[in-house]
């Protein structure tokens, strides 16, 4: 019975919570992408605090908490924050972060004073209205769970007031980003060129900051001031790790925002009962931020190129390849001297070049599987294919030794090291250009023969 009830609640309330959370998140992700790319992530933080006096003044002037009035107030003060920050930064030669800190704390303080003033001297109705905004819980976390309390009927549809506002702001943001896509892109990437082409990077900056201020205020009401930062920055930062095109970064950031809203609300309902708080639910806004953080961590770990795991794998693959090539070279040199090596001797020799024992074992395993090396009564021998590959490597190595000695005038006993590193990155084209440059030498600085190109 209670389960049935919670199902009913999901349909009426939870859907709206998720929809409003997702709309807020997508609006923030869209703008946050440009903040992250302009390395101005903290500007979102600054503006979300600085809009407070804007809200208070708008409230004092208009005497109401009407959404439009609040948005105008927020937009104006958000723009002022950006202008003041820029001005202090340039005129006062103050670091941009510091000037941001000065501006937003001062504005935030003014906002607090104004609101307290309204609460004490305004009429009772106004005072309480303003006081509600200052409820610490509400400022930090918003009131996403209460969206359904203020239904508004528009176009014959009854939906929570927060839905209409967040939807309008989302559509406005999408429209502006779509319309000014290339202008936003160029002024984020290369402000100097943008300005020289007549697309003033300063004006684009102010436009973006105004949008951030308006979006922040809307999100403020639903998810609270702290979590706005999570919505602005985290999905965009995660998307930046996952893609290398601006268009897909914008799309991915919005998808992550939706995932965070859905999963965040779902876990707000369910996670507390797992950890023993039956019958309670956590703050949805808080959980949205937590889920965003988790998505970011996953991206940081698993992103295809920039992720930690892929970087570790790349490094491992490289060290195995180097160990494999070193093993081939060592076997060929042993053959040159008329000998062979036991697996233990080869292992030791490759380890001596600096390879880890895991990499060496894996490299020897690969060489045998690829039939480049044969294990024959306790000794290791190169197969025909293995010898061909090893000869190429030896040729690269000895050509590089010759080159390094000739061009950098290093003593003969110093040329092995550089050649050892260079041989692993030398492709056939580079090798033959090298040979041409050196006029096809036959012997390296140590007097050992350089295998000719057609030896393979």
């Amino acid at each position: 019975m209670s389960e049935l009830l919670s199902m009913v609640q999901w349909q009426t309330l939870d859907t709206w919570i998720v929809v409003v959370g997702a709309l807020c998140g997508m609006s923030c992700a869209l703008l946050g992408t440009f903040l992250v790319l302009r390395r101005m992530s903290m500007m979102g933080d600054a503006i979300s605090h600085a809009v407070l006096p804007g809200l208070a003044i708008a409230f004092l002037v208009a005497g109401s908490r009407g959404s439009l009035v609040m948005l105008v107030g927020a937009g104006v003060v958000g723009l002022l924050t950006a202008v003041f920050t820029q001005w202090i930064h340039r005129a006062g030669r103050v670091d941009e972060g510091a000037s941001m800190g000065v501006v937003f704390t001062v504005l935030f303080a003014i906002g607090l004073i104004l609101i307290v003033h309204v609460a004490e001297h305004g009429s009772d109705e106004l005072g309480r209205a303003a006081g509600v905004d200052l409820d610490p819980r509400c400022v930090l976390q918003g009131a996403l769970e209460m969206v359904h309390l203020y239904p508004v009927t528009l176009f014959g549809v009854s939906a929570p007031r927060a839905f209409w506002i967040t939807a309008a702001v989302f559509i406005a943001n999408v429209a502006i980003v779509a319309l000014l896509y290339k202008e936003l892109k160029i002024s984020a990437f290369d402000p100097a060129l943008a300005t020289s082409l007549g697309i003033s990077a300063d004006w684009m900056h102010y436009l973006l900051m105004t949008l951030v201020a308006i979006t922040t205020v809307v999100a403020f009401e639903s998810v609270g001031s702290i979590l706005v930062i999570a919505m602005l920055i985290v999905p965009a930062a995660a998307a930046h790790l996952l893609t290398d095109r601006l268009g897909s970064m914008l799309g991915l950031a919005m998808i992550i925002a939706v995932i965070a809203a859905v999963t965040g609300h779902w876990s707000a309902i369910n996670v507390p009962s797992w950890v023993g708080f039956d019958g309670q639910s956590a703050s949805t806004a808080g959980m949205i931020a937590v889920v965003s953080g988790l998505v970011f961590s996953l991206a940081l770990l698993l992103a295809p190129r920039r992720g930690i795991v892929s970087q570790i794998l790349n490094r491992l693959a490289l060290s195995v390849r180097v160990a494999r090539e070193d093993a081939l070279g060592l076997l060929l040199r042993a053959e040159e001297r008329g000998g062979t090596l036991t697996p233990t001797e080869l292992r030791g020799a490759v380890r001596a070049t600096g390879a880890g024992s895991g990499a060496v074992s894996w490299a020897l395993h690969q060489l045998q599987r690829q039939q480049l090396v044969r294990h024959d009564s306790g000794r290791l021998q190169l197969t025909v294919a293995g010898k061909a590959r090893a000869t190429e490597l030896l040729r690269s190595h000895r050509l590089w030794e010759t080159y390094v000695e000739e061009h950098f005038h290093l003593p003969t006993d110093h040329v092995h090291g550089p050649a050892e590193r260079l041989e692993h990155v030398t492709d056939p084209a580079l090798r033959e250009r090298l040979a041409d440059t050196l006029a096809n030498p036959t012997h390296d600085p140590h007097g050992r023969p350089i295998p000719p190109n057609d030896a393979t």
Partner: protein
Amino acid sequence: MMLHQNRPLVSDEASKPSAPEVVQRTADPVATGAEHPETAPLSMHDVTVAYHRKPVLWDVDFDAPEGHLIGIVGPNGAGKSTLLKAVLDLVPRVSGIVTIFGRPYRTQRQRVGYVPQRESVDWDFPVSALDVVTMGRYGRIGWFKPVGRADKEAAHAALDRVGMADYAKRQISQLSGGQQQRVFLARALAQEADLYLMDEPFAGVDAATEKAIIRILQELREKRRTVLVVHHDLQTVPEYFDHVVLLNMRVVAQGPTSEVFTPENLRKTYGGRLTLLEEAAHAIKRGGHG
């Protein structure tokens, strides 16, 4: 502000609309050029730029002759980059007049191509090489309009011209320094300008790229484009540039490389002792803080 006798009207030019024969681009390249200084690709008159009261450029007088490769040479902090930015209205001028083909820059944006220093942008930005080159077309495309097929093709052609067609789809952080510089050059080419301003296009590039870039600059000169290049390597100045501007806050010397690029002038530009002007600048700076 003193007026030069040979150009008495120059201070009026910015305010009053230029005469039609000055505005019009002459089809015959021989008819334009140095003999008409008021239609010079770039004319700077008494330009002074200061950052926080400290002068960076002082009284710069300079006419760029059309169809030449012009090197801007001087020590660090001589104001070379600032000179380019002053032309592009990227830094406020304390005084002076800059005209592009006889008219203010803001009316001539499409005739000027700009290559900023490579380090001035974030190469981790999520765009491809082709995206970056396409940005050179944004001024032509105009506000609000999306990038069209013709502009994409022009960007492709520009990439091809610098030998980077195969890298069009690469994200720009995956390019080497030399390749990034080529992309910047391609972007300027995509601007299809008549005057190019390039800030150290040879900085940190490999020898092959340097040769490729200089070849393209020479092609531009053959088409009577004017190219100003901020350059650091004194060794290659006579080889690369037919004109040179020796700059150290003010113009020490300017003219054909063979006449101007002399040890005497270089000593004046790079000289160890402070010039009187620099001493004055220091005094101003001290006064500004006092």
